[in-house]
């Protein structure tokens, strides 16, 4: 690592002497795959003279496991609200107090003080959305606002269904489908959940992330999905519609946080403040097609986003959504056990 330090020092010295930006250097962002707007990164690099390196992960578990091992070299991570209390408790995040940053005033009231990070001491909003079902309505004409699509699949979709391997979301859908409360540790319900999932699995074709291309190329006809990804699918194939399971579905928020062992803390803080600017937040949404939780960003977004059925939840289905929080440890252990059994 020595040569790296020397190189960075030399770089900083050179830039300082030439009187360029104060934040010259690097920023290593660890974010979900296919989720970060390249234009946003470019704008940040130019505005603050920072070289940004982006690395992908595919699940909250992968990110947590990798960061806990140390030696990762990342500065910024974007975990979901449901796991942020774990990140804080495991002492992985740096208290950057974004609530005192200049652009914090732009955060929508709903997201200013949140249960997963009281007072916003560690995190700022990245994007938020729902988990539901994307269905190719050219092949299936029935009701798509139900988890039966993947748990009791109609004949047309059998063997043509993908399920994202995101434990918390799939468990949430399955538990509410069988009439339980999210985060329940009621063993009677959970036994039914396990049996239902194991019974449904042979009717799925895959358990994959990164489905936009696979769905538009008809590798499968339905998938458990995030709303923004579904919107991106519809842009390529108008038949792909998004369903909100009436039995219950999770609402989530991914949040930008700075890691405790970050090497570029100042740049990371600059980035936090940067993305709370409405114009920049709009760039995030424009790429990944989720709402961002920043007031005033709508006017910078393309018109077809503000009334998209993937973003605006129909009134009669609003009550079915629950914000996903960290489940108690007992419930989580049971879910992991069920999940492991399912994935094998």
């Amino acid at each position: 690592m020595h040569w790296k330090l020397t190189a960075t020092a030399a770089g900083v010295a050179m830039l300082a002497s030439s009187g360029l930006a104060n934040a010259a250097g690097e920023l290593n962002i660890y974010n979900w795959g296919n989720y970060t707007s390249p234009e946003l990164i470019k704008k940040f690099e130019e505005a603050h003279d920072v070289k940004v390196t982006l690395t992908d992960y595919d699940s909250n578990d992968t990110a947590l496991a990798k960061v806990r091992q140390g030696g990762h070299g990342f500065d910024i991570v974007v975990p979901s609200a449901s796991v942020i209390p774990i990140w804080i408790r495991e002492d992985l995040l740096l208290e950057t107090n974004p609530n005192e940053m200049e652009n914090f005033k732009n955060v929508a009231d709903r997201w200013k003080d949140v249960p997963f990070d009281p007072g916003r001491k560690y995190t700022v909003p990245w994007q938020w959305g729902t988990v539901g079902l994307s269905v190719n309505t050219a092949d299936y004409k029935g009701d798509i606002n139900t988890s039966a699509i993947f748990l009791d699949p109609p004949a047309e979709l059998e063997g043509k269904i993908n399920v994202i391997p995101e434990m918390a979301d799939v468990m949430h859908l399955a538990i509410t489908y069988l009439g339980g409360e999210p985060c329940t540790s009621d063993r009677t319900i959970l036994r039914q959940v396990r049996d239902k999932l194991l019974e449904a699995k042979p009717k799925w074709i895959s358990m994959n992330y990164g489905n936009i291309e696979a769905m538009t190329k008809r590798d499968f006809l339905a998938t458990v999905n995030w709303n923004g990804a579904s919107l991106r699918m519809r842009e390529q194939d108008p038949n792909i519609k998004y369903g909100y399971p009436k039995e219950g579905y999770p609402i989530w928020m991914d949040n930008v946080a700075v890691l405790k062992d970050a090497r570029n803390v100042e740049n990371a803080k600059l980035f936090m403040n940067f993305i709370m600017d409405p114009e920049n937040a709009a760039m995030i949404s424009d790429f990944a097609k989720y709402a961002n939780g920043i007031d005033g960003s709508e006017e910078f977004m393309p018109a077809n986003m503000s009334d998209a059925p993937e973003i605006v939840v129909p009134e009669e289905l609003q009550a079915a959504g629950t914000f996903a929080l960290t489940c108690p440890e007992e419930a989580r252990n049971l879910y992991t056990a069920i999940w492991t059994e399912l994935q094998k």
Partner: protein
Amino acid sequence: MASAAETARKAERDDIRKRWLLSAPALLIIFFAAAGPLGIVIVYSFLEPGSYGDVRWSFSTDAWVSVVLQRDIFDETLSIADAHVAIFWRSVTLSLATTVFAFIFGFPTAYFIATRPERTRALWLFLITIPFWTNLLIRTFAIQEVIRNEGLFNIVLLKLGLISTPIQIIYTDTAIMIGMIYVYLPLMVLPLYASMEKLDFRLVEAGYDLYATRFQVLRRIILPMVKPGIVAGSILVFIPSLGAYVTPRILGGGRNLMLGNLIELQFGQGRNWPLGASLSITLLIIVLAALLIYIRYAGTGARNHG
């Protein structure tokens, strides 16, 4: 006064010491780079899993028990871990099938190359090795583009009117096998070619002179003489297939796991490092067993023809 025997013994001791000192760097590297990490894997397999990955430092044989047995989440009864058994079985059968098909495709290829004029052989071998220069991931994605529902293969069949709906190949065991055959074929062709190159084709001619049919020549003359190449090629294909990770991950759709994916699952989402470690060692044992069989067969092959 030292006797001649003592002097000789001293010289021998010095000699031994010198030999140890000279080989010390190599031994240290082998110890720290090979045995060391393996030791960590073995130690981890006897620990308890931490809550979010990692391990808790208390002794437990749970991981080893759960390689073969599973405890029901709700009524705590023990039964055979049929999921693990299924994945082991899939890995072994898919790898065997891959080996057989790689042989079926590789043997004629190697024979073709070995029977070309000497100066053009290099070109043919070069063509075989070209795919090796391309990243494994890219080759796998290329296969995906060919076999997916709107891929080349299905579109051609649809256009020809041979099928009316696409054949579902992607995300099945067949897809994994196709991918592995494609990726590992050169590993079969090269050793086969190496032993065929040494084949004395006068013996083949002699066989024909003595009224042997083509099949008899193949079975009684060519196959026995290239046996070391067949065994080496089969092992070279079988072992990496058994531990394959990328191909089943992409072409299998995350639902049809192979051993490599099962192990990765334990270190990632499964958050059960001890189980991952014990599964890794189990895989190692299977590979060692395959290698022992190889040594045995290759050994007899060398005796017959060496």
